[in-house]
């Protein structure tokens, strides 16, 4: 199930609230959450729930063993076993086909491999359970003695399918004991609806235009058409992903969990280094803490470590070379920035660095968007005017004018502008000792508007006219 569906909003969520808040105590509530989460997961993929349960179960025991035999070889062995099992599952389901194809291309030997549909969320929950076992091993957190509680951590539907990658230590306390307050719940509502709006109002709209422009007709795009297409794709992927994270964080608050932030206005970044401090932060910090630093960080072989991390970051996004290329592209940019650019850019006005990042980021999305690299090459040539296509044509002009207001809206929503206006107004009122109730009311009405618009647009996507009379 996904958050941005009518069935989640108007069936699953109300039922969840009722069952959860009518449960008498924490133990019941935990069970309610586990069962709801399993139902949520099973909704699309009833079979793959077994993988989730395997991962949670083995790591429950791994955690216990690590703690019991602290300092002894068994402890290390349990970590290794956790890595082998989780990465094995991930490798088998996500990368087996990719690996087999590449080996057979290199050696000419055909390797039989199953074609599986990727179990939803496997990239997220395997990382979560790995981080749990390692954190126990490092003594950063105590092992969870209760199986249901660990299962709750792994399966929690808020972040199960699309992150953020939540670490056990960050919510360990809340698994044991959660506080529910009205202000927290209210914050959760605001956050959830902000995310819903990002996904349904912004990402879906941008996606429609991006698909129209970028699917199967890249050769004939004029220069501005190519840029419009990739800009729309950039908006689509950001608002989709950030919206999903917002919804997860918002749901967390409503149910008493605090998840870390996952995005911090990445499109306002001024360098690739800065971008990755703001984009999918839970993934970046995962690779930093569990790969980059253990490899030696910036003390031993920093270059190798960076390349390994960026290779893996790319590969994590999908079993295809274009993602690897996309990851390495950022690794390379970051290495160049470290050595050369950042010093230079400090002396230039911020707008220059910002323009550099936006162009670099859009070029990155070209690699990300096309699994077929020749297509990516074609779009890049079109963007930089190498195909001989005109700057613009009538069609693109119509698309530009038709979407002008949307482009401005999406650009504004990528910046902290609205948020900072709100905060300033709040601070201004507080400073003068005035009530902020009026402001909260405005916020509530704004949220209601987001909710209504999202619902309207979601119902609209079910509109599927039958075109039999088309000819």
């Amino acid at each position, binding site marked *: *199930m996904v958050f941005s*569906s*009518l*069935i989640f909003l*108007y*069936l699953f*969520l*109300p039922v969840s*609230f009722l069952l959860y808040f009518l449960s008498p105590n924490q133990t019941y509530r935990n069970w309610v959450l586990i069962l709801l989460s399993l139902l949520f997961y*099973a909704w*699309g*993929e*009833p*079979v793959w729930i077994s993988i989730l349960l395997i991962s949670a179960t083995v790591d429950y025991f791994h955690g216990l063993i690590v703690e019991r035999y602290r300092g002894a070889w068994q402890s290390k062995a349990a970590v290794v076993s956790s890595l082998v099992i989780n990465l094995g599952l991930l490798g088998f389901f996500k990368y087996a086909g990719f690996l087999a194809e590449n080996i057979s291309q290199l050696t000419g030997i055909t390797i039989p491999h199953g074609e599986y549909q990727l179990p939803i969320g496997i990239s997220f929950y395997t990382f979560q359970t790995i981080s749990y076992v390692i954190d126990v091993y490092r003594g950063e957190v105590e092992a969870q003695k209760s199986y249901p509680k660990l299962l709750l951590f792994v399966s929690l539907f808020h972040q199960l399918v699309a992150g953020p990658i939540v670490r056990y230590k960050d919510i360990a306390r809340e698994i044991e004991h959660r506080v529910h307050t*009205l*202000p927290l*719940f*209210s914050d959760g*509502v*605001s956050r959830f*609806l902000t995310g819903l709006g990002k996904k349904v109002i912004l990402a879906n*709209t941008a996606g*429609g235009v991006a698909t*129209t422009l970028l699917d199967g007709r890249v050769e004939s795009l004029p220069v501005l058409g190519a840029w419009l297409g990739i800009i729309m794709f950039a908006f689509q992927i950001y608002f989709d992903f950030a919206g999903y994270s917002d919804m997860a964080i918002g749901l967390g608050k409503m149910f008493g969990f605090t998840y870390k932030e996952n995005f911090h206005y990445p499109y306002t970044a001024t360098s690739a280094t800065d971008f990755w401090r703001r984009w999918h932060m839970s993934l970046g910090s995962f690779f930093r803490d569990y790969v980059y630093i253990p490899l030696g960080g910036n003390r031993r072989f920093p270059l190798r470590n960076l390349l390994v991390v960026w290779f893996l970051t790319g590969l994590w996004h999908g079993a295809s070379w274009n993602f690897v290329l996309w990851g390495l592209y950022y690794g390379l940019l970051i290495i160049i920035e470290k050595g050369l650019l950042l010093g230079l850019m400090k002396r230039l006005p911020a707008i220059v660095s910002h323009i550099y990042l936006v162009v670099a980021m859009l070029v990155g999305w070209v690699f990300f968007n096309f699994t077929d690299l020749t297509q990516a090459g074609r779009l890049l040539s079109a963007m930089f005017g190498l195909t001989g296509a005109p700057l613009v*044509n*009538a*069609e693109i002009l*119509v*698309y*530009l*004018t*038709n*979407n*002008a*207001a*949307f*482009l401005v809206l999406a650009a504004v929503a990528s910046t902290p502008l609205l948020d900072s206006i709100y905060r300033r107004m709040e601070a201004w009122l507080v400073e003068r000792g005035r009530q902020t109730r009026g402001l*909260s009311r405005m*916020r*509530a009405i704004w*949220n*209601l508007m987001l*909710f209504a*618009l999202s*619902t*309207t*647009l*979601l*119902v*609209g996507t*079910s*509109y*599927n*006219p*039958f*075109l*039999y*009379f*088309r*000819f």
Partner: protein
Amino acid sequence: MKRIPLNILLFLIPLFLLGALNLALPKGEAVSAVEQRRLKELPPLTLTNITSGAYFKAFDEFFADRFIFRDRFIRWGSSLDQLRGFTGQDGAELIVTHGDDGFQGYQPAQGQPDQAPPAPGEGLDSRSAILVVNDRGMELYNYAPASTERYAAAINRFQTGLPDGVKTYVLLAPTQIAFHNNPRYAELTSDQADGIQAVYDLLDPGITPVDAYQPIAAHTDQYLYFRTDHHWTALGAYYAYTGFMQTTGDRPVDLAEFTVEEVPGFLGTTYSRTLNPRLEKVPDTVQIYRPKAEYQYDIFWSPGQPARSELFNMTHAQAKGKYGIFLGGDVPLGRITTGLQNGRRIAVIKDSYANAFIPFLVNHYEVIYVIDPRQFPESIHSFVKEQRINEVLFLNYILVTSFDGYAPLLEAMMDR
């Protein structure tokens, strides 16, 4: 007790209210009139359906299709679309639509002409662009060399398999965007005169092409195309008919020889695909030119079983798809028998453009067969022989030559 913040109330009240209404209220009609499709039903709750995930997927669609106030939400959603930007002075908008083409899977059950069309997903998904300028929606045509060639090749193959003495005509109908007077949008779409000529050039010498383009182009100041539908009006079809008559060497019947009727309030396919409010404001009027000759019309929902019907089926006048008045819509096989005794027997292999055109032939042929390649279940060559057909007219609108799926339908009729 503490006061519950407005923010929470404004979230939970609509959430629970709409949630409860969805569960409580009856699920309404099973057919959507605007979309002309059957709404999703729940599949049986079987173990296979559950383990494959099919049940859940269908449940999602079922839930969305039966959502409370769905029609109103959809209408609001299409108005919201207008806020994305501007439409310029002449209100130009390009709308890419998705929908169900119904190439496959449309098999009307025996004797059930008014059954609901299939649910979405059973046909091929199609994506195409509609240019809305002011209150007119126009389908864009893009010349597609491969499917153009395949279309011509299929007709050539048809001609080769015919008995001697059977004459084959091909009439490709231009669409309204070919005659749109604003040159600014000319480059959005391919030239239709060229597209039609490209097909005609590929036809074998034994096949006679029919020029419908010129007679239509000569009268573009008249009401030849619907603004909210992708078809021509009966008047547009009439001028194509005069072109056909010129080719066959007959004299077209004068328009004054027909009784004219009008059915107002028609919002057609370009409207239902875009739900554009500017189209909605100005509905079309369907004009009917009823021939004074004698005739009877039979529909064969299945071979060998004629069902008497109306050439102008006025039950469609009350419905959404008013173009369905002509011949009662698309049927597998129709037969018009007139009082003429001239031995001329024609088969029209066609898409829905022919529906408005065929009534004009009543004054010239003894028998007219109407064949829809999407549904016609028999071998076309044997049919032509058995029914002693001596003229065949392929009548399509130019866009079918850009669809991958159309020529295969013609081929399939010959392969049977």
